[in-house]
């Protein structure tokens, strides 16, 4: 009874693509917000574009999550742990959507043009021009990014705990190669 049903393939692909993007964004963000080096302009441009891509993917993913509910957690997990897991997942979804919006909003309030992918697309402002608001959102962007990074670390630690210590199938339910597992193949039937 160790086998937990797997996430669907689209869910797993979305998870891993976004995992790479979000981690890259956090590292680019914290580096570019301190550097005066020669990659500054390129990194800021990349950060804007990938941020909006994450926003689009996060919306898709939210739709996917509501459409195909995730496999249940193992029944023998204490309720407190289950509640914590659900709460952290909700917060992860909230931050995946709010953080890009705060970034977009702060550039709008700061009066910055918002070009994406070189100069090919220009995003319209979503907030009125207001330098005080820009300063507040710029602070909020940093704080929320720190919160997201903390959550990501907790998420990774919990996943590894499930995979290496409890060995209860929770980690495997999100691994890409789990699709080769006959039991999870079976679960696609429902």
């Amino acid at each position, binding site marked *: *009874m160790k086998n937990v049903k797997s996430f669907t393939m689209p869910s797993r692909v979305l998870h891993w693509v976004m995992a790479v993007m979000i*981690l890259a964004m*956090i*590292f680019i963000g*914290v*580096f*570019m*917000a*301190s*550097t*005066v*080096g*020669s*990659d*500054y*302009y390129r990194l*800021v441009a990349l950060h804007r574009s990938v941020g909006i891509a994450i926003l689009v993917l996060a919306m898709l993913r939210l739709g996917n999550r509501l459409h195909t509910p995730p496999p249940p957690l193992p029944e*023998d*997990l*204490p309720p407190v*742990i289950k509640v914590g897991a659900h709460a952290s997942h909700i917060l992860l979804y909230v931050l995946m959507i709010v953080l890009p919006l705060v970034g977009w909003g702060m550039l709008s309030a*700061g*009066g*910055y*043009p918002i070009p994406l992918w070189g*100069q090919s697309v*220009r995003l319209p402002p979503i907030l009125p*021009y*207001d*330098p*005080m608001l*820009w*300063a*507040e959102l*710029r*602070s909020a962007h940093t704080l929320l990014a720190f919160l997201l*990074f903390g959550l*990501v*670390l907790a998420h*990774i*630690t919990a996943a*590894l*705990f499930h995979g*290496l*210590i*409890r*060995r*209860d199938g929770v980690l495997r339910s999100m691994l890409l190669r789990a699709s080769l597992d006959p039991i999870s193949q079976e679960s696609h039937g429902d």
Partner: protein
Amino acid sequence: MATKPLVPSASAVRWLGVIAAPTALALGFLWAGGGLTPHRLTQTSLLDALRAVDGTPPGFRRNHAKGVCVTGWFEGNGNAAGISTASVLQPGRVPVVGRFALAGGMPFQADAPAKVRSMALRLMSPDGQEWRMGINDIPVFPVRTPQEFQDLQLASRPDPASGKPDPARVKAFRAAHPWLRAAGAQITHRPLSSGFSDDTYRSLNSFLFVAKDGAKAAVRLSMVPLQPVTPADAHAGDHDYLFRQLIDDLHAHPLQWRLMVTLAGSGDAIDNPSKEWSRDNRQIDAGTLTLKDIESEENGPCTGITFDPLVLPRGMMPSGDPILQARSAAYMRSFYLRSGERPTAPAVSPEMTVPPANAKDNKS
């Protein structure tokens, strides 16, 4: 089904497996933010170096703090359209919000002939493309890299005892940077014009203009006054004379500058702003800037704009000049910090910029 304990016993290796990845990520995060390298050059260390020279008046720009807002328009003539697709260089008018300022972080410093003057502009094309620039009345930039900029600031910070830079420290900086000697001499011995209105302002940093076929041309830009140039004269004891003169000039008539685009020659250092380019380079007259109105920063339209030189329209790109990247990064941080602070009244007050006709109307 036997209930498994929440934490089954597991080997130390497995536990190590659990904590290794998050620990590595946390360390990487600290490193990326500069937390593991306290002496690294950062936006904060650069602004701290400026503060060491100028102090921190809240709400003002960390550099070029004393200034005034101006508005007008730029009229492109199409002459530079062959080397850049930027719509602002096509024939036609675009609105401009600008700012004149003195270099340095002191918003209440006294005007003096030899202080570095700057012009900052935001040009807004009707198609939404935007071009910002901050240009200065010196022939070259005093340093080549952000690190040298920070070192120069720290070397010239005022000594607490005398209130003046320590000559020994300045001398040590010069001795350690012989390649900057020429730039220092060119800045010190530059001809000084009488004020903001008859001054020439230069981009110092290089940019790449991108033509329709994708060809890139390295350029530097300058704004050359159409007003007759008169040499600087002494104005001892007149604290704001440069700004008063600019206000009087703009109340009397619009002021105009010609945007000159200088193309790099084969021997010119594109990525080194402390090196002057050859004087016989090809120059293109790209259009005319007209400034008409002037307003105090207290309610003026330029106050909430950061004149980040890397806000460029399509058809222009940054060169590899490292100072350009550092300016963009430091301006962002300065704009962030000052926008969250409550500013005091600027030196150039709204009373000073009231046009004479209105002043009369108000009195009657």
